[in-house]
């Protein structure tokens, strides 16, 4: 199967397979991403984060409705945590997006975190590129939803939607700086539960400190995804925020920032892989741990030694 052509033609099988290659770190994945790269940059990436149970998936489901209503093709990557003990996962977010089960303009892919911290999977960054290249206009990236650690989604998204709900301790969570800095648009879902108004006031209070000069003026949106309430307001807020970020250049800055972060990530990984070829980190690691544990070696000196070895080996290679 020619995955490159298949992805560009948005063939579901090709798109699905391409994402799997990336997830599994298949040797072909990197070449595919490079080939698809010129075709990326068109899709709008919207991160959706918030505590588990806040209703992210249901909200995304409703937003998909609105996107489809506006004639746009939509993709979703929904991330769920892998069990740290068994490595397995139940990927259950798409259950709440069943109304789009047979819509050809909607592509939903669940991903397990596979040990990645940061709220998304390691492969999410490249996976959304595939969806971008396949021509989806909007890509929702739904994180695991553990709040503060979800910084990766900011890197991957053009806009981040932070979903809160009353009574989940979000009042306190909202105060924690990390979470509030992540969001561009704030939604209080399950607005019919007690405490919704109080939560809104608290969130607005914290937001007033965040950007005294500029940034988003968007008010907190009150919604009930299950009852399809507040969704049009949310979609409008997203639209306005997007228009603003295009106009004031912040979208472009953000995308350049993302490329920079990705580049750093690739560099880091590749250097590590390169080092590993000569230094065989995984094989040696056990021995080094022993030496250090017994204080027979010192950590920085040990690593310097390995780098020396690596440079020498590479030098020898260059000579031959």
């Amino acid at each position: 199967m020619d995955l490159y052509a298949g992805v560009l033609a948005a063939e579901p099988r090709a798109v699905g397979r391409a994402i799997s290659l990336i997830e599994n770190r298949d040797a072909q994945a990197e070449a595919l991403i490079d080939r698809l790269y010129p075709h990326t940059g068109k899709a709008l990436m919207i991160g959706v984060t918030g505590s588990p149970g806040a209703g992210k998936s249901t909200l995304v489901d409703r937003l998909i409705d609105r996107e489809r209503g506006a004639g746009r093709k939509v993709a979703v990557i929904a991330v769920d945590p892998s069990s740290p003990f068994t490595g397995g996962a139940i990927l259950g977010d798409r259950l709440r997006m069943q109304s789009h089960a047979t819509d050809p303009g909607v592509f939903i892919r669940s991903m397990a975190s596979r040990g990645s911290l940061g709220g998304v999977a390691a492969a999410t960054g490249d996976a959304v590129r595939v969806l971008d290249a396949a021509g989806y206009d909007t890509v929702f990236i739904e994180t695991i939803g553990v709040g503060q650690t979800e910084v990766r989604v900011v890197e991957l998204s053009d806009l981040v939607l932070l979903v809160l709900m009353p009574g989940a301790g979000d009042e306190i969570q909202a105060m924690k700086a990390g979470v509030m800095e992540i969001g561009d648009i704030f939604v209080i879902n399950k607005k019919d539960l007690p405490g919704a108004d109080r939560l809104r006031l608290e969130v607005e209070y914290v937001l007033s400190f965040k950007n005294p000069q500029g940034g988003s003026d968007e008010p907190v949106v009150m919604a009930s995804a299950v009852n399809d309430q507040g969704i049009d307001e949310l979609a409008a807020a997203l639209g306005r925020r997007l228009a603003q970020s295009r106009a004031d250049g912040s979208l472009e800055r953000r995308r350049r920032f993302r490329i920079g972060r990705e580049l750093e990530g690739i560099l880091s990984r590749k250097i590590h892989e390169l080092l590993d070829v000569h230094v065989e980190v995984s094989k040696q690691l056990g021995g080094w741990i022993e030496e250090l544990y017994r204080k027979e070696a010192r950590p920085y000196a040990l690593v310097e030694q390995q780098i020396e070895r690596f440079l020498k080996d590479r030098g020898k290679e260059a000579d031959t």
Partner: protein
Amino acid sequence: MPNKIDDARNRWEETSLNKVLNRFPEWREEFVTGSDKPVDRLYLPEGSTEEEYLEKIGFPGEYPFTRGVQPTMYRGRLWTMRQYAGFGSAAESNRRYKFLLEQGQTGLSVAFDLPTQIGYDSDAPLAAGEVGKVGVAIDTLADMEVLFDGIPLGKVSTSMTINAPAAILLCMYIAVAEKQGLERRSLRGTIQNDILKEYVARGTYIFPPEPSMRLVTDTFAFCTAEVPEWNSISISGYHIREAGSDASQEVAFTLANGIEYVKAAVKAGMTVDEFAGRLSFFFNAHNDLLEEVAKFRAARRIWARIMKERFGARDPKSMSLRFHTQTGGSTLTAQQPDNNIVRVAVQALAAVLGGTQSLHTNSREEALALPAEDSVRLALRTQQILAHESGVTATIDPLAGSYYIEALTDRIELEVWQYIDRIEALGGMIPSIQEGFVQRQIQEAAYRTQKDIESGKRVVVGVNKFQAEERPPRDLLKVDPAIREVQLARLAEVKSRRNGERVSATLEALRKGARDTDTNLIPLILAAVQEYATLGEICQILREEFGEHHETIVL
């Protein structure tokens, strides 16, 4: 305050018991009930007083009904032997009903296929492969007429396992009966009509909870006025147990659903004593015989108290928990199917010792297929042997006073109240379901049970212990695959005969009525049914007006 019995127990433990334990330890560390609750070696009189007896146990036919809902119980009238049946076409099911009645069954119980239960006609795309498989296919009144052809509805009571479209099937039944020349006032029977459990344990819902409750209360009001001998609901715990809950959860979630229905009816303007006497229940008879007996007794006592203290019922009938029982299907095995005959006998005995009003016994091959004639006859014979040969019907609530049974009854009651309180704290059953609380409880219990089976801690004879070489199963019932074509032909024929304009008119009237919550929909449904509107057509109107429910999946 130590008493003579306590002292004697201590002495017994220190001497006779220990002597044996030292040489032959018990074969398990801990003994548990079927619901995984600890069971003591021995139960002794709790030093209970006369007051306690009168308050907690009392007399059959009187509050709190622990010992039974009628003063004479089986000495006055045996439980109704009511085998759940139905498959394929109405004609085939009619034959099976006649067979069962000839063999001595005393009431009818109708099983409908999944398309019918979910409001689809046999020609709907989603009905593919499902027509006639788990029950009879009913698309129009014409099918219903064939189903009861030659069966005098005035002489037999009929229970129909139908929930989301219960009102429609009830109307069809009334229409058939009236064609037989009967007065609807005289009709006896039950519709299951318990939509709340569908959301958590059975899955044949159509509409969301609010409009579904409206349909339920409409049937209460209609039956109270027009079909007063009819049980307008069978609030069910059977399926909750089958989904994996334990005994206390089975009772708790059933009674919590019951509370919800009573609340809804009262909100709709009825007074408790007007309708509560016609609420009935449906429980599981599971493996652990003694726990099941205690469960039934606890259920009666709790419901009586709820009706009296919470809802202010005055009529004793409103406080009486009358119930049908089915032996637990999920306990039956595909391996060594004859073992199932024994399981069913033990489970049926539990139901009888527990005071059931009506009983279905499963057949030996039910882990594999619907029962063949001789299997279902044997299941019926099981009930008849219990009734006429075992002697347990000669006295009322024979296990009362057993120290274990009374302790177990009390324990289950306590656990049930705890669940009910938690559900109330969440705002009632509907929020609890939407939030997933109920489903999680059931899931956890189901998970633990299966893990215990897979580890061997819970023995399933013939499956994880005492296996044998399996012989291929004997002739199993097969539903004629041509059933779908047969139904399609019948549907086409009915549609061609009926008056299309009148059908449309009744459907439009129904649509209008659906939009007005003050309108009772039952007469409108009856009008549509009488014009041979199809089940699917009626449900489609309601789907459009009420919307469809989507599962809250809890995993």
